[in-house]
Every structure is written in structure tokens, then in C-alpha cells.
């Protein structure tokens, strides 16, 4: 990566606040989410259910329900604020500049159209190419994602494909227009571990070969370790840590990242008591004041009652913990 594109991020999310209107009033799903993805970079977002990682991904593509949600802040893509675009302009970004793949490929694919038709649809919409050429390109795209006999598979329907093959087909659709950013939301969670390994390798290869940046949303720190170079830890709607993956795994700077790592069974000695995080994630309607992790944190202090900001730990990492400099937290290697 050159110094020039290191300075200009591809995606620059600033102070993202996602609000949902519910019967009980407005709730805030994310608060002050700020991060950047550089061209070609692979960034992971890790967190448990309800931390706001999926809505963050959806908001980038403008896929949140318009009626019941409100998004504050800025999502700059190559310097242009996506939140300020019209629906028509946004359609030109989606699928061409930024694509997204999801956990359950069966619900994202249309059951009544062939795989080839669905890949071609993206091409025809964005590139305006003819049907026949689109089919040729679809076969190429299927071959690229490692689907055997692509010339035959192109005419098959989603139900004729296995789970792993469907996820490959989804990736083919997402990448056919060579987007600059691919958002992958738990793309391997529904897959068996040997198939997951195939898909991780595929995403890694495609991203390094084409220079497509990757925003990888998952609950699985192992998947992040094997795919990404930088990771964001989210908790209760906030980014609590932003660091290079190896550095975060070795020495986390936020007690929550450390707690998540320590509770993974394979990092503990067999048959010993697993370190767990006491309590549970606070509900959106009832966030604790000050540090949101404080009620569950072993390192709470009086200064933690103040609202926490992301503070610089070093040039390339930040943590939302006022005590980070004075704490030595265990990582993947104790």
C-alpha cells in the first residue's frame, strides 16, 4: 500500500448513529461509530448479537428501513457522503461500487430465477451489456468463485445448489461488477467448518487479487484472525476497540475484547473453568451512563462513569477506555 492511498480512506464512517423508532419510543442502535477502510484493506467487525455490527453494514448500503430508522453522521465513500445521495444515485453505488453478501444465501437469492440470470441482472443494470454477453460473463464469474462445471451451473436454480455453492454464487453476484468494497455479514456462519475454510480462502484470494476491500462482519474471532488485517470490536452499539488484528489478539486494550478472547474454549486448558463475562449486554432502551461496559467490567473505577471516547493508543489503534494505559489485559496468549 502506498503512502498516498493510506492517507485517503476508501470508506470513512464518522459519528454514525443509527436510531430506530419503536412502539416504546426511539432507541439508538449505534452511537458515535467512527472507522475507516483503506483501498484493498480487509477489516473485521466483531461483536456479539445486538452490538450493532449488522446495522452498521446495512446502513453503508442504505438498506435500513426508511420509515422506521434515522441515521445520523457521515458515511464518506471516496469522499462522497452516501447519506446525502438520492435513492437513484444510491442504486448506482450498490452492486457496482459496494456489494454485500449475507449469512443465509438462500434468502438472498431469488428462487425463481437461474443463477446465471441473477449474475447477469447485476451486469445489465450497471454495465448495460446484452443478455448473451451477460451469460458468458456469468459463466466466467462462476468459474472464478470455484464452482465446478460453471457452464451447466449457470442455468440452475438456487435450490439445486448446496449451501456452500450458494454462498459461492452470492459472492459471484457481488463481485461481478468489480466493486471497490465488499461487505460480508457472517458469510460463513451457516456453513460447515470444512466449507467455511473454502469460502474464507476464496474471499481472501479474490480480495488480494482484485484489490477489493473487505468489511467482514462476524462473531467469530478465529475467522477475523485468518482473514483480516485490522479489527473493530463493537459492544452495545459502540466501537470499543480499533486495532491491527495481531496486536489486538496479543494485547487487547479494551476489557471487552480481552473478555471475548478469554471466553473462547480453545484458548483455555482442557476441562478448566472458562473465563466468562459476568452479566449480559444492556438493552438498547436502558444503556448505562458512562462506559457501557462498566457494569460487567472487572476494572471499573470512578472515572468510568464519564462518557467514554475512542482514545488513541498509538498511531494505528484506538480504544474506548479511559483506563487503557494503566491496564494490562490478557489476550489470546496469556
Amino acid at each position, binding site marked *: 500500500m502506498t503512502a498516498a492511498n493510506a492517507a485517503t480512506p476508501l470508506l470513512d464512517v464518522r459519528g454514525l448513529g443509527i436510531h430506530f423508532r419503536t412502539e416504546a419510543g426511539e432507541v439508538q442502535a449505534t452511537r458515535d461509530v467512527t472507522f475507516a477502510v483503506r483501498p484493498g484493506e480487509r477489516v473485521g467487525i466483531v461483536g*456479539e448479537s445486538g452490538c450493532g455490527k449488522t446495522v452498521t453494514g446495512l446502513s453503508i448500503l442504505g438498506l435500513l428501513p426508511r420509515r422506521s430508522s434515522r441515521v445520523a453522521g457521515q458515511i464518506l465513500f471516496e469522499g462522497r457522503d452516501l447519506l446525502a445521495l438520492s435513492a437513484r444515485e444510491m442504486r448506482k453505488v450498490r452492486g457496482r461500487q459496494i456489494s454485500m453478501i449475507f449469512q443465509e444465501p438462500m434468502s438472498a437469492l431469488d428462487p425463481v430465477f437461474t443463477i446465471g440470470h441473477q449474475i447477469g441482472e447485476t451486469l445489465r443494470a450497471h454495465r448495460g451489456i446484452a443478455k448473451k454477453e451477460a451469460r458468458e460473463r456469468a459463466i466466467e464469474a462462476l468459474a472464478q468463485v470455484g464452482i465446478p462445471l460453471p457452464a451447466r451451473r449457470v442455468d440452475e436454480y438456487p435450490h439445486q445448489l448446496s449451501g456452500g455453492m450458494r454462498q459461492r454464487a452470492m459472492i459471484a453476484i457481488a463481485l461481478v461488477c468489480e466493486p471497490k468494497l465488499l461487505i460480508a455479514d457472517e458469510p460463513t456462519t451457516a456453513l460447515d*467448518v*470444512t466449507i467455511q*475454510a473454502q469460502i474464507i480462502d476464496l474471499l481472501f484470494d479474490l480480495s488480494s487479487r482484485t484489490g477489493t476491500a473487505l468489511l467482514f462482519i462476524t462473531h467469530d474471532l478465529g475467522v477475523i*484472525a485468518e482473514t483480516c488485517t485490522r479489527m473493530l470490536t463493537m459492544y452495545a452499539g459502540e466501537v470499543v476497540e480499533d486495532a491491527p488484528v*495481531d496486536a489486538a489478539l496479543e494485547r487487547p486494550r479494551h476489557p471487552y475484547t480481552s473478555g*471475548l478472547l478469554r471466553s473462547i474454549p480453545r484458548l483455555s486448558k*482442557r*476441562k478448566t473453568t472458562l473465563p466468562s463475562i459476568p452479566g449480559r449486554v444492556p438493552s438498547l432502551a436502558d444503556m448505562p451512563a458512562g462506559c457501557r461496559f462498566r457494569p460487567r467490567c472487572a476494572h471499573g473505577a470512578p472515572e468510568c462513569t464519564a462518557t467514554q471516547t475512542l482514545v488513541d493508543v498509538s498511531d494505528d489503534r484506538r480504544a474506548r477506555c479511559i483506563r487503557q494505559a494503566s491496564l494490562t489485559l490478557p489476550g489470546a*496468549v496469556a
Partner: protein
Amino acid sequence: MSTLVEVTDLRIHFPTSGGSETVKAVDGVSFTMRRGETFGVIGESGSGKSTLGRAVVCLLKPTAGTLKLEDTDPYTLGGAAFRRKRRDFQIVFQDPNAALNPRMRIRESVREPLDILGEGTRAERNARAVAVLERVGLSREFGERYPHELSGGQKQRVNIARILTLRPKLVVCDEVVAALDVSIQADILNLFADLQREFGLTYLFITHDLGVVSHISDRIAVMYLGKFVELADADAIAERPLHPYTEALLSAEPVPLPSHLRTDERVMLEGEIPSPISPPSGCRFRTRCRFAQDICSAQEPAWRELEPGRFVACHFAGDVTQKGRTK
């Protein structure tokens, strides 16, 4: 340790919806479980691991082969004796919601097994339900709530409490932590370990998660397409696998370690698990195995005890697999 469960050449076959073909979900599995141990079963979807678990608690009747619970074949017992035997062998499922009636209070759900048994007065049964709830870490007030008011981890605690009321000898845990977040998962795994120590429980722990199974198990069986391919002590499986499929599973698991502590060489499996309707001839794993030879399609490898306590079904176990693992 005495034997609690003995399974011999167990087969469970299902007709397909058309009725013309047979799904061989479990196709010849033999093992014994000792009292007080945690016996892990790991496999991918379609391996037959859940079917096996259901067979052990008599929810599915074997098509062939025998199941012995404490030296007795339950299917030779009469109705009342069969039900009494089955009470000692319980199961907890993956989805904590599906197992709870949304219209019943938690206390009622936990009390229900006792109501069916009709033991003691209602007040006594209530007291027992509350005591068990407290034992799994849920205070008395949770008993008055409904399932939708609880988190996933709390609901799984309720499901554990329900079976504890019956004081079972064996619990089949079928992907019990798969639906839970990792920090909650750690709590539930710790709870299972505590309860085992306290009540002398035996677990059949079924999961697709290698980290979970190796943490909690004494012995681990690796299942592929209806059969065990390997069975050994948990340490042996994790450190020195003998079957190429075990090796590939271990190697496929993403490891949350910094890059300098991970090995990059990965044994990648080609293709997918074949259909259990018409499994490959000979060794079922041969279509994805990097060591496959002619003999693997011609002859089914025997289930043999290669070293004391280490069972494996592979023609080349002990030589080729070891060589393949460059250390």
C-alpha cells in the same frame, strides 16, 4: 468406571419422501460410554450425529443393531418399565426456544416433568422446581416469567433445569451452545461441568465445534456420513489425529491467534459431504481424501483398535496420515 451405554453396530435408516430410497443416517456405529465421562461426538451437518443422540435416548428406534442402557436393551422392556428406564436418559436441544412452551411460566415448564411423574404434592414439586432453577443460576423471580422475557442463555439454563428435576444418569447435549454468543457459551459450558461434578452425570456431547468439544470431552468420536471414523482420548484427537478427515477438520478450524502463532499450511478438503442415500463404496471419505488409493474404493476399512483405546477406520492409519502432517 462401569459401562452405562453400549451401542453395537447401530443403524438408523429413514425412507425418503418418495419412499423408494433409504437415507442411511447412522450406518453401523459401535461404542461404549463409561459412567461419569463426557463423550464428545463431532461431525458436520448430515454426518448423523444428532440422529445418533436421539437413538441413545430412545427417541428413534434402531433399524438394526442394539442399544444397551445399563446392560438392558430398552426395547425388550414393557411400556411402564421402558418409560422408567428412559427417565434416566435425557436430552437438551440446540434451540432453547423450541423446547419451551411460550404460554407457560418458566416455573411451570420446569415443574412439568415432575407433574407427569406425579411425585409429591404440587407445593413440593414447585419447591423442587425453584430449587433446581436456583441451582442453574436463575433466581426465584425468573420462575414467574415467560420464555420471551429471557435471553437465549437463560432459556438454555431453564432447559437444563427441566431435565435435572428428573435426576438423569445421562444427558445428551445436542449442539446446546451453538445458538449462544461466545461469552454466554462459556457460562453454559462451565455450568455443564459443575453439574457433572455435583450429580455424577454422563454426557454425550454432540457438536460441530472443535473448540467446544475438545474443551469439555474426555473422549471424542469423529463422525462422517453415518459412521465413526475415529475415536480416542480428547488430547490424542487434538494433538495426533490418525484419520485424514480428523486432520482436515482440525486444520479447517479458524484459530483466533496472532499470525506468528498460526500455521499457514492447511489441509483443504475438496468438494462436499456426499449424499447419505448412496454413500461412496468402500471408504466413505475417499472422495475427499488426499491419500485415497484403489483399495479405498474397493474395500471398506475395518473399525480397528490401532493403539489401546484408539479406534480408527482407515486402511492407512498409522503410516500415511502421520507422514502427511509435516512437523
